[in-house]
């Protein structure tokens, strides 16, 4: 069986750098940061700029973020006047780490303070982890495979990889995919702080010797994936190709990565094999790069395992240096950022990287963005890594047009 190729025809994002995929790309590439006071909120995001008051009321903040990015991605794909395929052939697969936690917390407050009769009748459809996929499906008539993917901070990449497989195998002509997360709530903050994951300094500096934890953020990223033959037949503008996907489990520890990044390395190797691309042909890596001691060391070792002698020749940068860690949405937002970085042949910087740590000696693109150097003038190829609590690893392999 020959697998269909899968192309990216639309992207959307809401991030702490502002509304829009291109805003994310341009501002990150310029070295701007969306982090304020140790958190990365989407401060400019106004739900009713992107949806009706009724849609906004029926959505947790995480789903509102997904609706906004999804609407942008569909318009970017040229779908704003309607779907180019029968709705039964269009899926919607979104990821989330937690789901509607703001709704859960607010309703728990109601329950405790006012009794069971005071919880909202909308609580269940707002809090459920599949709410964002359901909302985009409803808003746009997507009637193919529709569900959500939950794998902590790897959810976005797992969602996109799942969507890739659906199109490759003919289950859908197109899939709207990505992830959203809105975890800036009292309970979520307290829980992540209690486990020591959050940066006490409030600075996201992936791979730097002084890194002391991640900066929590919120946001969403959505991509429209289409079967390449179908997209070309309708004359779609193609932003890039999703060449491969690898997904592995560490089976090592519930929160810590394997000390040598064994599962992460295998995810990258599986993605490259899936893509049919040799490691030395990779031009850029969008790292998981959380700014935690453990991840950044394990990921660096994993990159050395995969790329061997050429590991220090490949620019590796972390979007989280500019927008913090969007948990389940991270992989989706980073895939969006990687699509545009490849399109513009640029490696955006790892902001705040100044001090090298022992053995963390790759090219982390410190300071400012840099043009990608490709051999033979072929379209550049990138990997985008996501590693989640639970030992869930997912890597996407993307190629520019």
């Amino acid at each position, binding site marked *: 069986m020959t697998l269909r190729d899968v192309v990216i025809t639309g992207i959307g994002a809401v991030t702490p750098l502002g509304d829009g995929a291109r805003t994310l790309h341009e501002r990150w590439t310029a070295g701007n940061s969306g982090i304020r006071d140790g958190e990365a909120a989407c401060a400019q995001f106004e739900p009713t700029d992107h949806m009706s008051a*009724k849609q906004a009321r029926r959505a947790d903040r995480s789903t509102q973020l997904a609706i906004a990015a999804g609407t942008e991605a569909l318009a970017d794909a040229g779908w704003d006047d309607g779907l180019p395929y029968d709705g039964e052939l269009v899926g919607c697969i979104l990821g989330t780490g937690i789901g509607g936690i703001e709704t859960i917390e607010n309703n728990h407050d109601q329950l405790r303070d006012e009794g069971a*009769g*005071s919880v909202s009748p*909308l609580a269940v*459809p707002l809090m459920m982890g599949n709410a964002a996929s359901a909302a985009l499906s409803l808003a746009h008539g997507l009637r193919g495979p529709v569900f959500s993917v939950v794998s902590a901070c790897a959810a976005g990449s797992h969602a996109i990889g799942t969507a890739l497989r659906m199109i490759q195998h003919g289950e859908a002509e197109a899939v709207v995919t990505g992830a959203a997360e809105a975890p800036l709530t009292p309970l979520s903050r307290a829980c992540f702080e209690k486990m020591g994951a959050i940066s006490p300094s409030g600075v996201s500096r992936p791979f730097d010797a002084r890194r002391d934890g991640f900066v929590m953020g919120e946001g969403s990223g959505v991509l429209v994936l289409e079967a390449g033959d179908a997209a070309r037949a309708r004359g779609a503008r193609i932003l890039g190709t999703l060449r491969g996907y690898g997904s592995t489990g560490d089976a090592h520890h519930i929160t810590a990565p394997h000390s040598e990044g064994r599962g992460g390395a295998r995810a990258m190797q599986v993605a490259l094999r899936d893509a049919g691309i040799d490691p030395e042909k990779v031009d850029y890596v969008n790292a998981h790069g959380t700014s935690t001691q453990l991840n950044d060391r394990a990921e660096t070792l994993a990159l050395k395992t995969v790329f061997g002698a050429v590991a220090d020749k490949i620019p590796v940068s972390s979007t989280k240096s500019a927008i913090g860690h969007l948990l389940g949405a991270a992989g989706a937002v980073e895939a969006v950022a990687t699509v545009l970085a490849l399109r513009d042949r640029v490696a955006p910087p790892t902001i705040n990287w100044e001090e090298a740590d022992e053995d963390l000696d790759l090219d982390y693109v410190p300071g400012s963005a840099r043009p990608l150097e490709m051999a033979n003038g072929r379209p550049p190829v990138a990997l985008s890594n996501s590693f989640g609590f639970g030992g869930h690893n997912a890597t996407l392999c993307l190629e520019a047009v």
Partner: protein
Amino acid sequence: MATTTTPQDIESTVVENLVSFGADPDVVSRDATLEDIDVDSLDLVELTQVIEEKYGIDLDGADFKQIKTVGDVVDLVVERVQG
């Protein structure tokens, strides 16, 4: 409280809440059907919660079986409050 509540108060409460749920204020009137203003079963459950709390009455799903218009909702609540 119920003894001093007028049908006008109840109509205002119903309309305000339906508008807050996203119904178009220019279209909401006594004669508008719930379908016209895109009010569905979830909206009715929310509205019920507000009305029960405000007027101290109990409504259940069966009460809404014959309801078609905004006026039907108002009349139902007026009947319960005054009854």
